[in-house]
Structure formats: structure tokens, C-alpha cells
């Protein structure tokens, strides 16, 4: 039905798979595009683009509503996407997969339905200093909601790792009801020890939410092996479309949680006086969902899966080693975070250039990096970099030559600013 990805061999054929991504062929200001901002949003392979077009051209109608061919076909495609995501995360049951708009909405869903619906006054949520604002602000809002729920923050070490001693200390009194931490930092590239965090939290009576927005792109995620309670990621960073994200949660938790948004498709019955909720996942999917985007996410998950995690992870390790070697040798460049276990995200600052000036320069060389604080202001403050950093983040299609080119451009940029 669809063309397979370019390679399923253990070694990633990057030159070949790059041809699946039409946008990479373009030039920027006369230069070959070197796209190093996949951590913000990844580019899309034609397999995803074509699956979405085909859905709209051939199989589109609203889902879960019509007793006619097209609606049944669209429903089938939408639910097939749920099944594909469940397999992608090794979930025990596809009903544990709730489609949201993005990770941000998934976390807000948990903050509302679990935080306000299940947690009790006197309990606390424990986040870390290296959270993306999406996994900080919803918990600040919960804290400030007058329900008596506190917010604790686990420290990050100077190397950019989660301070597990501090984690243990903040779990010790048994008041933490939920640990909500990233599985991979979008600034430091640090991959957090998910299994260990879960074991520590569960021993202290706390549930665990992992923000997998970055991790799910760089590592194979097995929610059962990790043992988490909630896991979320977003489609657009995983080579899929915008507008679709995933909350995975244990069925027993979803059963206990009240709905987040009310509306059509999330109810079992409605009278003018009251409504009864549909069982999960429908209970959490009010209104017409992102049908075409779910189909696109399905294609993205299939694409990544067919390339194979061993090949993807080996390619990523090679890129990370190369970047560590090349970037740490540049005079005047400060690399943020030196975690033992890390993925392809590198934030850095030059001693003589502001990140915005640097990114303007790199753009002239065709290199797209993000400049600023990457939705992680507290983390930048933690490292004394209130002015921000530049961030290079890698994707499937990133080559070692591109990493070298970035390093060369950084050396020249430092000379430029003198």
C-alpha cells in the first residue's frame, strides 16, 4: 500500500532516506540547507505527506458517527493509528492511547484530570529543573488553584543530569503524589534514567509521568518495561504532522480520571440534566479529533519502525560522538550539559556572540539552529545563561558532514565577532 522507508538494514542509509524528505533538497540563501532544528519540529517524509493526502482524497469523513462506508473507513484508519501508537510504545492495550493535540495538551490533561480529579490536598507534584515549560507551567497552575497541592523541584547536577539524591530526598516524606519529569531534556540532550525514577517514585507511593517529546524520537520507548504511569509525546517531532500528540496512561488510571474537556464523542448518554462518560480513551477525546493527522502519525510511526531502532540508535550515537568531539574542541564555546547518557541535542554559547547574532550568522551558512531559551527558562537560569543558547538538534536525516560543517561555521563565527 505505501512505499516502505528507504532502508531497513541495521546501518541507516542516510543519503538514501534523505530523499524521502522533499524539503531537505532546497537551498537557503544559495546554500545547501543544513537543518539542525528537528528538536523544535522535525521535517516530514513523503510517506507521511502522501498518507495524509490519500486520507483526504479517498477515505475522509467524520469518525465514530456515520453508518456509511466512508465514515466507517475513516474510523478504521483513525483506530488503526491508535493501534500503531500502542505497538510503538509497547502499550498493553490500545485503549491506553489517548490522542491529544500535542504533548502540552497531554500534560494539561493529566494536570486537570489526575491533578484536580484524583490527587488529594496535602500531596505534591515533583518536577525537575530541566523541564520544558510544558511540563512546568501546568503544575504551577495546579499549585495555584487553591487545592492544597504543592510543587517541588528536583535539582539538576552541573553535568546536566537529574540529581537522584535530591530526588530521593524530595520523595522521602511520602507526600509526592506524582513525579512529572522529562525522559530526555530538550536543552541538554540528557536522557533520564526512567526505570530508576519509576522505581524510586513507586517505592515512595508516587505515580510517574514522563515527558517523552524528545525521547520518543531518539530511543525505543517501552512503557511497560519502564513501568511508568503516564507517558506523552508529540507527532510533529517524530516526523509526523502538527496537531496530534499522544497521552499513554495505564487503563486503571484513565478509568479513575474524570474527563478533561466535555463535548461530543466522549459521552455514553446525555440528558439535559446530566451525562455519563464513555469509557477511555473516548472519555478524553471530546469533539471531532485530528483524523487526518492521526493517519499521518500512523505513517510516521511506521516509517521510523521500518527503519529500525538499532539502526536509528547507532546513527544517533555516531552523531553524538562526532558532535561531542568537534564541539568540545572549539575555543570559547561553552557546551551545556555533559550527561553520560545523552541524545542528539546540543545547546551551546560562544563567549563573544549572543545566541541570536550567532544564529543569524549560521543561517547565512544555510544552518538552521534554534536560538533562545528553548522553552526552558529556569534551566538556563540554573546554568547562568539568562541570555539563552543556540541549540543544534539532530534527526534521522542528519549527517556527520553536517555536524562537521556546524563546527567549522562556529569557529568562523567566533572569528567574525572578534
Amino acid at each position, binding site marked *: 500500500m505505501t512505499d516502505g522507508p528507504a532502508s531497513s538494514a541495521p546501518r541507516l542509509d542516510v543519503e538514501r532516506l534523505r530523499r524521502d524528505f522533499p524539503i531537505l533538497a532546497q537551498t537557503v540563501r544559495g546554500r545547501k540547507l543544513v537543518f539542525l532544528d528537528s528538536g523544535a519540529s522535525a521535517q516530514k517524509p513523503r510517506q507521511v505527506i502522501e498518507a495524509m493526502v490519500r486520507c483526504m482524497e479517498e477515505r475522509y469523513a467524520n469518525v465514530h458517527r456515520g453508518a456509511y462506508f466512508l465514515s466507517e473507513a475513516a474510523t478504521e484508519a483513525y483506530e488503526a493509528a491508535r493501534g500503531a501508537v500502542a505497538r510503538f510504545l509497547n502499550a498493553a492495550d490500545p485503549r491506553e492511547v489517548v490522542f491529544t493535540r500535542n504533548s502540552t495538551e497531554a500534560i494539561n490533561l493529566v494536570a486537570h484530570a489526575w491533578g484536580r480529579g484524583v490527587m488529594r490536598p496535602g500531596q505534591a507534584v515533583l518536577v525537575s529543573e530541566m523541564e520544558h515549560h510544558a511540563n512546568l507551567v501546568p503544575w504551577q497552575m495546579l499549585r495555584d488553584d487553591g487545592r492544597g497541592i504543592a510543587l517541588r523541584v528536583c535539582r539538576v547536577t552541573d553535568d546536566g543530569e537529574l540529581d537522584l539524591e535530591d530526588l530521593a530526598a524530595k520523595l522521602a516524606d511520602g507526600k509526592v503524589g506524582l513525579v512529572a519529569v522529562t525522559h530526555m531534556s530538550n536543552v541538554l540532550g540528557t536522557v533520564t534514567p526512567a526505570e530508576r525514577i519509576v522505581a524510586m517514585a513507586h517505592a515512595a507511593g508516587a505515580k510517574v509521568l514522563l515527558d517523552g517529546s524528545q525521547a520518543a524520537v531518539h530511543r525505543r520507548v517501552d512503557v511497560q518495561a519502564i513501568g511508568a504511569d503516564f507517558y506523552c509525546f508529540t507527532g510533529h517531532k517524530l516526523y509526523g504532522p502538527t496537531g496530534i500528540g499522544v497521552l499513554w496512561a495505564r487503563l486503571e488510571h484513565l478509568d479513575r480520571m474524570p474527563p478533561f474537556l466535555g463535548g461530543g464523542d466522549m459521552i455514553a448518554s446525555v440528558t439535559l440534566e446530566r451525562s455519563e462518560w464513555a469509557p477511555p480513551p473516548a472519555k478524553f477525546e471530546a469533539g471531532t479529533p485530528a483524523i487526518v493527522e492521526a493517519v499521518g502519525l500512523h505513517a510516521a510511526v511506521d516509517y521510523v519502525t521500518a527503519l529500525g531502532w538499532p539502526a536509528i540508535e547507532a546513527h544517533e550515537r555516531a552523531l553524538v560522538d562526532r558532535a561531542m568531539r568537534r564541539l568540545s574542541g572549539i575555543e570559547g564555546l561553552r557546551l551545556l550539559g555533559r550527561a553520560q547518557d545523552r541524545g542528539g541535542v546540543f545547546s551551546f554559547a560562544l563567549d563573544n556572540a549572543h545566541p541570536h547574532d550567532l544564529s543569524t550568522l549560521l543561517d547565512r551558512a544555510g544552518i538552521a539552529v534554534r536560538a533562545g531559551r528553548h522553552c526552558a527558562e529556569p534551566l538556563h537560569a540554573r546554568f547562568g545563561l539568562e541570555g539563552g543558547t543556540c541549540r543544534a538538534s539532530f534527526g534521522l536525516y542528519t549527517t556527520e558532514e553536517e555536524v562537521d560543517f556546524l563546527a567549522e561555521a562556529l569557529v*568562523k563565527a567566533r572569528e567574525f565577532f572578534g
Partner: protein
Amino acid sequence: MFDDLRDLYQEIILDHGRKPRNFRRLEDADLSARGDNPLCGDRMDLWLKMTPDGRIADAAFQGRGCAISMASASLMTETVKGKSAEQAKALGARFRELAMTGACPDCGDLAEEMERLQPLAGVHEFPSRVKCATLAWHTLNAALEGNKEASSE
């Protein structure tokens, strides 16, 4: 690799960016405002000392930001000294036009002042950087109008 960026980063911009003039706090300021660009984290505090007849006797700032925003604030504080509030606001309006379009056809009466700001004209080719150049002038406007905060967003 970056030769064509010398239009944007002229030596005078790099110089003012590295060593901004009037980079100090004015303890006896009559007017002040804080400017923020929440998107990129640029932030500056601007202080103005006014003469009895409403002219800017002294202007100074402190803050953090890129070379463009620091240089723009530095050049601005040099340029507005001695100007009335109205003249300073008019200058700001024209500077914003210069930053956005690269030209200022109606600058006749302020041509001399605009000449000093000309090195920043190159920013118009970089839409995401125009706000860096205009933040100082938004902050000046806020101070002159008695507002405490300005945002370039």
C-alpha cells in the same frame, strides 16, 4: 563564509555591541522604563534625565541582549540627548521605518540624527531581527509616555 553579513554587522555595530555607550544606571532619573522581548529574552532598563523645559538632558541604559539590540540602545542614547520628547518620539518613528524598510524617505528634517542610526538599516533584511533593533526605541517611547514597561512583541 559570512562576508555578506558585514552589512548587518558593521564594525560600528560590533563596537557598540561590545562596548555600549551610556551603559549605566541614572540614579536621579526623571523617567524610566523597562523593555522586554519575551521571545528572545532581551531586556533593558532605560533612564532619562529631563531639563526643566522638557528636553532629554541625559539618557542611559542597562540590559542584556544581542549585538543589534545593545548597539541600537547605545546609539539611541547618544542620539536623543538634547532632543525634546516630541523630537525623540519622531526620531523613534522614523528609526522604526528605517529598520523595517531600510530607507526613510521623510527624514529630511532629522537627516543628521538619522545618519548616525544608518548603520542599523541593514536589519531590515532580517525580519526576525528587526525587533532587536527597535526594542530600545519602544522602551524610550514608554518612558516618555510615563509607562513603566514596553514590549517589542
